């Protein structure tokens, strides 16, 4: 699973960016794919899951950057009882939410999970994630085409004594 880095990757990102802009521009042309409100398209975001840092992963997934917002409530423990099973949840009062994603900054690949939130689904998700070490958990909410984020550090260490 080598990540394509360097010029080739950036060229692809630009292309991807251009493609999604074009789609928005086309507005309500009857298009096979639902007119993308810049929501992650239906295909499995392979590229985003390959990115190392959460900044690159966010860009690969949404093609834009997020701004912190206190309307995004991220619920995660102070100290994870076990790095393999960390209960993390997010809820938001923002409306027209189309996507929610979770990033664990210093995991081998930052993007952990991404959820599509169709109309009529409450913008709130709980899940259990793995965390390689003490690091920031970032929740991203895409609402009405814009990205909002919340961040919290979760401490993770090994358990037990001598071994």
């Amino acid at each position, binding site marked *: *699973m080598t990540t394509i880095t360097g010029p080739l990757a950036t060229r692809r990102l630009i292309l991807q960016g251009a493609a999604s802009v074009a789609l928005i521009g086309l507005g309500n042309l009857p298009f096979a794919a639902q007119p993308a409100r810049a929501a*992650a398209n*239906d295909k*499995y*975001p392979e590229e985003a*899951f390959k990115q190392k840092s959460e900044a690159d992963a966010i860009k690969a997934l949404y093609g834009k950057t997020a701004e912190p917002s206190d309307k995004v409530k991220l619920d995660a423990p102070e100290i994870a009882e076990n790095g*393999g*099973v*960390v209960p993390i*949840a997010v809820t938001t009062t923002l409306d027209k939410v189309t996507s929610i994603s979770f990033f*664990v900054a210093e*995991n*081998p*690949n930052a*993007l*952990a*999970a*991404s*959820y*599509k*939130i*169709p109309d*009529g*689904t*409450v913008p*709130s*998700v*709980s*899940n*259990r*994630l*793995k*965390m390689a070490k003490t690091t920031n958990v970032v929740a991203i909410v895409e609402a009405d085409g814009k990205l909002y984020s919340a961040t919290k550090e979760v401490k993770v260490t090994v358990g037990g004594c001598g071994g």
Partner: protein
Amino acid sequence: MASTIRVRATSNGDITEVQALIQHPMDSGFVKDSKGELIPAHFIQELKFEYNGKDVFVADWGPAVSKDPYVKFSFKGAKKGDDLKISWVDNKGASDTTTAKIS
């Protein structure tokens, strides 16, 4: 074999809360086994919840989702007794699907 998907869908008023626990190793591909060899990546990539033929929730998962993964969400517009279809596909092409009654 019993389904790998355990679902609890409970509706009160217009909101149906859905909890799912799925039996899957979710191997990340970074862990070594007792003989020191890397256990190949084997994890659920997509988990879909459909109601009346329409997706109400779609999860794109990576290897950082815990073993025997769990997810909870809620959606509007369903009522007691309706069916909720759940299906997953992993990176090896394996899949499972089940239908749960909203209680």
